[in-house]
């Protein structure tokens, strides 16, 4: 789960990381009070979860109160339905640094990533000038050790007071990483001010979804969803992405769903939504279909080949969903795996015509989506 900048910065502050002064506002009229506290120049920052806010015009540096006010009004009227805006003091920047901590899947370790070239696109830098990026593996048994933080901080060749502050920052950021079961904790840019202070210019904190049960501090749901279907899927923890094609996918297993997604493209079809109701969600057919029906599509294609996610249980769920929700569009099923013969019986008994071959099911769905018959 991704946190908003203001949430991440709250966490940072509590961990001893310096952040700029700021006020969070939820209505345009709150800008007066915010400006009184923060002053100008200031930065007007939309609180949205998507990246690239600067490029998208969602973060603006403003010099005057009038400018800040008009910016706030513009943003609250934005299509994205921005709910919160952070009014943040402008920092006197000497230098920008990139810092993050994540898990390196290959090493199977934590990874502290630091670059003296902050504030820019770190992914591009990783490709064009990898030597400018310091990567320090972290053994989670011992944690990030002071000598590691020190070694990296000194290599940045900063004044002593900055070096000391950077060492502290790396260690504090690691504490956040562990405490919040972070997939990623990132400060980009990390400002070094002209007064030699070290200040977090931005804050990104992604909590591992699998660890949410022990991260009770935050709501499981962030309100930054574009559609009702996305929101409902997130609420259930069901992996879901909405597109604008014809075929609604309701599959089990990430690999299989992705493969069906490929096969549809190979057959010339388009996708309305990706939805995966396998694994822990395999008994949620009714909810899954409800979400699929909220997305405009011409056909719903259900493909499974489960083991623990038993075919008979999923077939029963699908039949139940059809009977309850009475879908307004055709359903193509291809249910295999544990107890697959029982599944076929169940589907047939409910009047469906179950298919048994993935490619055939895909071709059928594409034909229907293109106006053909079932």
């Amino acid at each position: 789960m991704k946190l908003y900048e203001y949430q991440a910065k709250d966490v940072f502050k509590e961990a001893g990381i310096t952040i700029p002064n700021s006020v969070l506002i939820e209505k345009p009229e709150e800008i007066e009070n915010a400006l009184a506290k923060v002053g100008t120049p200031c930065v007007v920052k939309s609180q949205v979860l998507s990246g690239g806010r600067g490029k998208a015009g969602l973060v603006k540096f403003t010099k005057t109160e009038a400018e800040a006010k008009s910016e706030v009004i513009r943003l609250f009227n934005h299509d994205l339905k921005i709910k919160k805006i952070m009014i943040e003091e402008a920092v006197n920047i000497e230098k920008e640094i990139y810092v993050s901590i994540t898990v390196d899947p290959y090493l199977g370790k934590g990874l502290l990533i630091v670059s003296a070239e902050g504030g820019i696109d770190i992914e591009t830098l990783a490709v064009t000038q990898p030597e400018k990026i310091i990567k320090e593996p972290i053994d989670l048994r011992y944690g990030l050790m002071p000598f590691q933080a020190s070694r990296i901080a000194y290599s940045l060749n900063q004044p002593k007071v900055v070096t000391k502050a950077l060492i502290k920052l790396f260690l504090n950021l690691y504490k956040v990483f562990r405490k919040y079961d972070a997939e990623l904790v990132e400060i980009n840019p990390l400002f070094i001010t002209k007064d030699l202070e070290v200040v977090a210019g931005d804050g990104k904190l992604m909590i591992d979804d699998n660890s949410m049960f022990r991260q009770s501090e935050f709501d499981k749901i962030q309100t930054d969803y574009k559609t009702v279907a996305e929101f409902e899927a997130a609420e259930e923890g069901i992996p879901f992405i909405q597109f604008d094609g014809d075929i609604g996918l309701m599959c089990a297993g990430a690999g299989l769903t992705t493969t069906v997604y490929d096969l549809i493209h190979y057959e010339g079809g388009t996708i309305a939504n990706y939805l995966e109701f396998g694994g822990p969600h395999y008994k949620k057919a009714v909810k899954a279909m409800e979400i699929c029906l909220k997305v405009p599509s011409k056909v719903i294609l259900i493909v499974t080949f489960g083991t623990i996610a038993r075919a008979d249980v999923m077939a029963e769920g699908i039949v139940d969903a059809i009977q309850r929700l009475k879908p307004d569009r055709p359903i193509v099923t291809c249910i295999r795996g544990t107890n697959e013969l029982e599944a076929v019986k169940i589907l047939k008994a409910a009047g469906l015509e179950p298919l048994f071959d993935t490619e055939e099911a895909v071709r059928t769905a594409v034909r229907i989506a293109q106006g053909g018959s079932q």
Partner: protein
Amino acid sequence: MSIFIDQNTKVCVQGITGKEGSFWTKHMIELGTQVLCGVTPGKEGQFIEGKPVYNSVKAAVEHHGIDASMLFVPPRLTKDAVMEALDAGIKKIVTIADGIPLHDMVLIRQAAKEHNAFVVGGNTSGVISPKLAMMGSFPHWIERVYKKGNIGVMTRSGSLTNEVTAMIVEAGYGVSTLIGVGGDPVPGTRFAEFLPLYEADKETEAIVIIGELGGTMEEEVADAIKEGILTKPLVAFLGGRTAPKGQKMGHAGAIISGGKGSVEDKITALTEVGALVAERPRLVGKLLEKLNVAKK
């Protein structure tokens, strides 16, 4: 023959008294797996499928000399259960749990390495050597998927694996040992780490890997082929070729990061070392034929 597990492997089941645990224990035994006992704290004295239950893995090892432990344990308890198995000296551990916390998984992998042990999973169906033994949750009785043969299979997926192995069987082949390393970003063991075992196994004549976008496990296999660690023919099927960039499609491992891990990258890496990549599951069998792999 097989790798990792066969009819002689002495298995205990952690979480044997749970619903999934008892269901799959029955089927593991049915297939011929030597399940000798189970472990569920507080359930010592019970019997599941005729096998005694103990309060601790240590007790299980003391009574039965266990080689391998199969975990049917919830994700949030998996780290502890794996640590218990490692502590008891078990070197082969399979966990099917879907939803293990990321940091836990990092510690599990670290501990496994320290103990020179294999942890397979989580987020997998496990390991199966058809007709011999299995540790996991495979509906092994589905003949059209789990036929014994000479193809070693490794996979990151669950349902997709069934899809692909069904196609391998349809083409007239069968499987020596299938290992699901699992779909998590940090699996207990990675594809390439099993290759020396497959290379040494006399009955495995070719390898099929079932991968997908994200991560670098397929590229590591290509590296192993380049280094001569694997000399047997290899066919790959990779899901997510048409996935939109930057989208997270289910598996956390399937994030395209830093321009790496795209299916194109993987295809390039694998074809450069002589492996073949199938565009569709159905074509995996055809490519095995193309590599002149005998059907037996």
